[in-house]
């Protein structure tokens, strides 16, 4: 081992290391799961890391993947070495340039973390649907199956592309490879250099555009020559397989790792063979190894170079004895005769027979199958079922594996208990919270064992879809051999549960194998813990003969100043119990890892961690499991897609219970349509403290309800009689409103839906006269109030909602008496975006269509298992769809166009039916334009009357009109997204939609970064802010999107900040919605990527406004009539410097720490920006305009 350089890293880093070392221009754009490759390169270049040519690669973030591909194309044409990273929709956006780059025979490598394409749903997880979509672009395609291969093939591609001049798409499976941490052998710099032939690089530079040697490239051609010219590149493609193999051979000479275009593993006389590419090959290879040991004649062909597909090399890789072949595709092409690899294999055999190129007298029986879509598990047990199927007389064609298809019956069944991993592989599973550091500690454990023992180590991490209170599961393997087990652990010999409450929520011990060691973070002592365990847990401990250990990690953490960070304590206990390293050595290595990970955070942080490690073992105790007999373990019920239960009972609740894997095809919607109103059934109860109302102090302002990101604190007003059945302890107070005398009001918390962020308490203006710290709402321990508040909230929900027509909905108080139709989202605790959506849902939700750009709002808005969008008692509520990231404005415009078309059709139908209708009704329906709640209610009643009158006629037009008559009630179209969409990738479309003059409302939840992908800079990122892709501080001034829109003249534009001026926010929403043209609201949305205290985030918005960092304004075209002044500056002149504001946010403060001189420079420039902008806005406020209709 001493001759080799081993390190543990994930597939993205393994790839980025090569890409950064071998390129000069790296154009990037964030997209999961490829973003980390760009982030690594940006960080390395920011710190001055050089490539093998001695220069620091230029890393530039573009506005979209299309932009990145364009920039790479240009850089290549001017002779640079250039690359990019992407996945999924991002790769699709690169297609046009990919055709160009290939057409011009330009050497480059695009590295792709292969990810599912959005179809019936978006998925961030891995499959080959993206890379298969670009296979016609003329790129060589090289598939890596593991972290080691991602590292190696990145270099082989880089080398081969310059030899062949054909661009390479190097891909590996998103998450399974991109995010798997594995011990790999890294390639030394001298080998990287040896793989890059200087003369080929120079040849590339010589072909570049240069005015000293001018050429014309990118011509337009006519039918006379285009075809011939297109065929002119053939010889280059024909040469690629040979070049790649030669490159692989050269690589093998340098590193000892041998690869071929097609690598066969298995019996020499195999009769049944699987052909595939990607990480799933790891699972197949494992199964092949154990089957061949028992004499089974099975094998596997791993496809490395998928394009150009070398028929001869493929056929040569197969044993001559093969009789049955299953070709596995990790993609689906509905309507095709088979998936791409399957078709290629068929073609290869068919053409070889045509050409007599095969020695086989008859073609093998070839079947195609699909597996692993969206990172669906693919295990050796499933592999076993495929080999079994190949033994059948008539194996199933176009099968699926990994799911239960009870509709078209294509799926293979498999026995999960049929296959077990080798005994000498240690398998550990850790259940933790995102916030307790379990994943970080698990990654460190992998590194410790991988880098300090001769063992190999692998880590893979599973996250849920929530941003607050998320649960993580870490799967760690340690083995004397390299680990290619590309599937989750099923029979662990170590299970750690880092949160005691998980035992009630999920089947933590299901994954435990017989005799496994269980480590439980328990607030209970070893003696009392047994009685506290759920019966299912007790049963499994006894049934599987598990060894149970407990540690009160929270207590140790608290005593050592670690707060709720129990990770190092649990990690120390793991090493003590897992018997992988001697204890002393393990502790020494843990401390080294802590120093490496947290060293830069300072001595205090280190000392706390060290103290926690030292104290952990004293608190670790084995539990004496009582001798008792328990009933057999319950058998997991089979989930049915056809039961009488409601969809929510059948599907949503199964998802919530973590049993989605068991749902059959029949249970799923065929077109991605789901019911709304499901977040309310989750009751995650993740808060430790909740706001408790003190009615004696409350001043009825409604601010707490307005700012709550989760609609978990609400206000209702009701007559006193309502309380006759109120539970004991239900609080209320007199409602101070002349128009509703004798009424009471209540502020009520939803105790199981609150995330405990504390924003409501922070904004509460009412304080006790006796103890100023006591407000009208105060955070108190949830457990002290849970039962009472649960009963209160149930009662509260049943109190009748206020009559919308009687409310002043343009006031804070009035708006908060409107029912929220967006509730209990999985957004971050204290999220700055969701209060705006909730307000929008309150004001217009019962008649709203939403087109939502991909991003945070589409994740907390529409990521299964539930959605926060909900309905009112009449069943009305927002209807929601997410098309894509880049097209959201256009998609929303489409919604409006459809509504307008439907309205016009309804008008024409009404004209046809007019003779049978009350003329006054017809006139009322036609002329109702107001959006006041009273008018909307009247219009709804008119529609009801219309339907009644239509029912009396048998005209076809009447039936058609009745079906669409609801369109007479004015619909509100909202186009929602973040700044990444509005400022960058979707700006072109947004601009077009704003210019269209159509009645749409655009809400930009402006966090100033790509929040969902982890805080990459956008054009909304302010100057001087540190963000990913701007780790040295953003250099350019924030784009003034609002003023770009104002320049159209007929676009309503508002810039708002709820925490600074709630009344202006509400007014802007009301005005934007009522304006019968395009409206744009830029909503200041704080985000954890700002590095602020989220509990005080709303009050902090006041600083943003007072410093004029975020001035508030409204531009209303309705006031641009006859020299009116449509621009209203709603905030006052700066009363605070930018520096004073900025130093309260880590995104700015970080720069002041890391580079004080640069911070000074950028802070001064930003202050100048602010001064200039304020001056400009002040002038705008005095400008008169006359915008014609």
């Amino acid at each position, binding site marked *: 081992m001493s001759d080799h350089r081993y390190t543990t890293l994930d597939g993205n880093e393994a790839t980025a290391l090569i890409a950064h070392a071998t390129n000069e221009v790296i154009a990037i754009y964030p997209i999961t799961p490829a973003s980390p490759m760009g982030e690594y390169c940006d960080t390395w270049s920011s710190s001055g890391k050089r490539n093998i040519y001695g220069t620091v690669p230029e890393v530039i973030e573009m506005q979209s993947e299309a932009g990145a591909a364009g920039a790479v194309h240009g850089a290549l044409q001017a002779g640079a070495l250039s690359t990019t990273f992407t996945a999924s929709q991002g790769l699709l956006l690169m297609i046009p340039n990919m055709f160009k780059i290939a057409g011009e025979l330009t050497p480059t490598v695009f590295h792709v973390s292969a990810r599912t394409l959005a179809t019936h749903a978006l998925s961030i997880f891995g499959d080959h649907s993206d890379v298969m979509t670009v296979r016609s672009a003329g790129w060589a395609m090289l598939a890596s199956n593991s972290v080691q291969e991602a590292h190696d093939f990145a270099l082989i591609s880089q080398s081969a592309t310059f030899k062949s001049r054909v661009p390479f798409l190097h891909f590996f499976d998103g998450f399974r490879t991109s995010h798997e941490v594995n011990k790999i052998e890294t390639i030394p710099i001298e080998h990287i250099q040896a793989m890059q032939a200087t003369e080929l690089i120079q040849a590339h530079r010589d072909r570049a555009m240069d005015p000293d040697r001018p050429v014309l490239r990118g011509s337009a051609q006519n039918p006379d020559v285009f075809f011939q010219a297109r065929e002119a590149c053939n010889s280059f493609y024909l040469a690629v397989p040979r070049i790649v193999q030669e490159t692989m051979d050269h690589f093998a000479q340098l590193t000892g790792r041998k690869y071929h275009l097609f690598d066969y593993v298995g019996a020499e006389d195999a009769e049944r063979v699987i052909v595939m590419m990607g990480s799933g090959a790891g699972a197949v290879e494992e199964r092949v190894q154990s089957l061949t040991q028992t004499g089974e004649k099975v094998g596997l062909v791993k496809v490395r170079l998928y394009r150009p597909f070398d028929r001869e090399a493929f056929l040569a890789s197969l044993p001559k004895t093969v009789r049955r072949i299953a070709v596995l595709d990790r993609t689906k092409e509905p309507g095709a005769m088979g998936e791409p690899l399957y078709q290629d294999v068929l073609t290869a055999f068919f053409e070889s027979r045509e050409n007599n190129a095969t020695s086989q007298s008859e073609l093998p029986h070839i079947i195609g199958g699909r597996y692993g879509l969206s990172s669906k598990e693919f295990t050796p047990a499933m592999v076993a079922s495929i080999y079994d199927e190949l033994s059948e007389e008539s194996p199933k064609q176009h099968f699926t594996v990994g799911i239960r298809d009870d509709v078209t019956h294509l799926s293979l069944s498999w026995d999960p208990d049929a296959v077990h991993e080798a005994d000498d592989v240690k398998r550990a599973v850790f259940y933790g919270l995102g916030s307790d550091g379990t994943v970080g500690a698990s990654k460190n454990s992998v590194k410790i064992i991988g880098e300090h023992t001769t063992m190999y180590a692998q880590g893979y991490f599973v996250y849920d879809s929530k941003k607050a209170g998320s649960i993580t599961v870490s799967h760690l393997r340690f083995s004397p051999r390299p680990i290619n087990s590309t599937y989750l652990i099923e029979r662990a010999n170590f299970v750690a549960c880092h949160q005691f409450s998980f035992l009630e929520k999920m089947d933590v011990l299901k994954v435990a194998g017989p005799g496994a060691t269980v480590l439980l973070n328990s607030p209970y002592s070893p003696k009392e813990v047994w009685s506290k365990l759920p019966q299912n847990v007790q049963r499994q401990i006894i049934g599987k003969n598990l060894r149970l250990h407990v540690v009160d990690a929270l207590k140790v953490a608290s005593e050592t100043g670690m707060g709720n960070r129990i990770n190092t304590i649990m990690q120390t206990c793991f090493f003590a119990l897992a018997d992988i390293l001697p204890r002393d050595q393990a502790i020494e290595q843990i401390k080294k890892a802590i120093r490496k990970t947290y060293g830069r955070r300072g001595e205090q942080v280190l000392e706390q961690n060290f103290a926690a490690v030292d104290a952990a073992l004293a608190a670790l105790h084995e539990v004496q499991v009582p001798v008792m007999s328990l009933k057999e373990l319950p058998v997991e019920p089979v989930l049915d897609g056809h039961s009488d239960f409601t969809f929510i009972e059948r599907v949503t609740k199964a998802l919530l219970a973590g049993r989605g894997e068991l749902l059959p095809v029949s249970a799923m919607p065929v077109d991605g349509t789901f019911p709304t109103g499901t977040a309310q059934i989750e009751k995650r109860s993740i808060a430790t403290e909740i706001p408790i109302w003190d009615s004696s102090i409350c001043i009825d302002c409604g601010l707490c309800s307005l700012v709550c990101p989760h609609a978990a604190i609400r206000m209702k007003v009701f007559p006193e009689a309502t309380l006759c059945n109120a539970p004991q302890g239900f609080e209320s107070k007199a409602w101070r409103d002349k128009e509703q005398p004798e009424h009471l009001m209540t502020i009520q918390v939803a105790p199981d839906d609150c995330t405990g962020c504390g924003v409501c308490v922070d904004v509460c203006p009412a304080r006790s006269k006796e103890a100023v710290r006591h407000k009208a709402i105060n955070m108190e321990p949830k457990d002290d109030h849970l039962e009472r508040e649960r009963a209160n909230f149930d009662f509260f929900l049943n109190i009748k909602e206020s009559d919308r027509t009687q409310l002043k909905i343009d006031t804070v108080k009035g708006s908060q008496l409107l029912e929220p139709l967006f509730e209990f989202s999985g957004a971050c605790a204290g999220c700055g975006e969701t209060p705006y959506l909730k307000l929008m849902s309150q004001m217009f939700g019962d008649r709203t269509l939403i087109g939502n750009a991909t991003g945070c709002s589409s994740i907390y808005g529409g990521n299964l298992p539930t959605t926060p969008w909900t309905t009112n008692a009449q069943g009305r509520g927002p209807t929601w769809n997410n098309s894509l990231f880049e097209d959201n404005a256009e998609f929303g415009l489409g919604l409006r166009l459809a509504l307008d078309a439907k309205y016009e059709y309804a008008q024409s139908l009404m004209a046809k039916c007019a003779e049978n209708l009350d003329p006054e009704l017809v006139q009322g329906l036609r002329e109702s334009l107001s959006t006041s709640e009273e008018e909307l209610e009247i219009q709804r009643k008119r529609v009801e009357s219309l339907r009644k009158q239509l029912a009396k006629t048998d005209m076809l037009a009447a039936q058609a009109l009745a079906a669409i008559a609801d369109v007479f009630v004015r619909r509100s179209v909202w186009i929602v997204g973040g700044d990444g969409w509005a400022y960058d990738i979707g700006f072109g479309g947004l601009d077009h939609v704003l210019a269209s003059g159509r009645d749409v409302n655009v809400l930009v939840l402006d966090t100033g970064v790509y929040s969902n992908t982890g*805080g990459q800079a956008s054009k909304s990122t302010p100057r001087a802010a540190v963000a990913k892709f701007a780790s040295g501080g953003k250099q350019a001034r924030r784009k003034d999107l609002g003023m770009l829109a104002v320049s159209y003249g007929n676009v309503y534009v508002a810039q708002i900040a709820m925490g600074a001026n709630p009344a202006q926010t509400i007014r802007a929403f009301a005005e934007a919605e009522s304006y019968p043209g395009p409206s744009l609201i830029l909503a200041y949305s704080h985000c954890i990527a700002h590095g602020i205290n989220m509990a005080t985030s709303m009050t902090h918005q006041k600083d943003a406004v007072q410093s004029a960092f975020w001035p508030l304004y409204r531009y209303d075209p309705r006031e641009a009539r006859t020299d009116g002044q449509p621009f209203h500056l709603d905030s006052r002149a700066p009363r605070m410097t930018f520096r004073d504001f900025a130093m309260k946010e880590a995104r700015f403060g970080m720069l002041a720490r890391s580079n004080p001189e640069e911070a000074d420079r950028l802070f001064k420039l930003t202050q100048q920006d602010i001064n200039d902008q304020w001056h400009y806005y002040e002038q705008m406020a005095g400008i008169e305009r006359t915008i014609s209709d």
Partner: protein
Amino acid sequence: MSIELSTTYLGMKLKNPVVASAGPLTGNLDALRQLQDCGVAAVVMPSLFEEQIEHDEAEIDRLYRYQADSYAESLSYFPETEHYSKGPQEYMDLLEEAKNILSVPVIASLNGHTPGGWTRYARMLESAGADALELNIYFVPTDCGMDAQEVEQRYVDLVASVRQSIEIPLAVKIGSQFTSIPNIAYRLMTVGAEGLVLFNRFLEPDLDLEALQIVPDLVLSQPYEVRLPLRWIAILRDQLQCSLAATSGIHHASDVSRVLLVGADVAMLTTALLKKGPRHIETILVDLVNWLSENEYVSVEQLKGSMSRANCPDPSALERANYMKALTTYTKEYWYP
């Protein structure tokens, strides 16, 4: 006749008794250079606050940890950067730079928070080149169960542990709120303090009536405040065999003369330098020389302690009788019912 201005403080020979106390000016290299050019005898760097370092470290750690590894698409929210300055490094860098550009002694100042922190940072400051160390002990007891003995023992233990961990001279800056200042001063000297800096001004916070919030507020010293060190240095001078530095309310040469007369080895200035700039040192030194000359003193050493409690004509004036007399005189000058 030339007058010898030199004095000895913490075993260091200083060219005159005027020292720039810990403050914003001594944290700035340009200002430090100017102070030296204007004749200052030594400088005390601003305090390294362990609590602040801990707070900053904890905040940065929290920033990186918050929501990290929680959601598959965003495993972190900030780019990791290798170069953000952390903890005491910035201070150490400043100290090293100050040592490089100054020839006068540079005294580092430390305000610790934990027993481990005091000794760790004391060693770091020593290795960064400090000529001496001033411990700035600022402890506000808030627990009724903690008695005076316990509070004082903390001070004593702390000074003892720091003394054992470093070799350079050690001064201790304390506040005036002790039941028996002479006793605590004596105990601190006994466990190894080579000097006492009298006194720390507690910067009491204010209350914002509008916001109903306690707000920190920096109030600069007033000339009358010199009377507190004046009295206690006079009382301590004859009983302690350690250096004494006077601080608080020293604005003019006359204040310097006063504190030297009662027994201070040096006079420390902050407010006056902030208000008038480093060149005020020149004025003070000229005025001091003039006063010494006019009053026929030949050296500062001659002046030092000549009005200590033992040496002054009326020691009782330093004691309670003085208070009674002053109060009576004071009230008579104003409206009285």
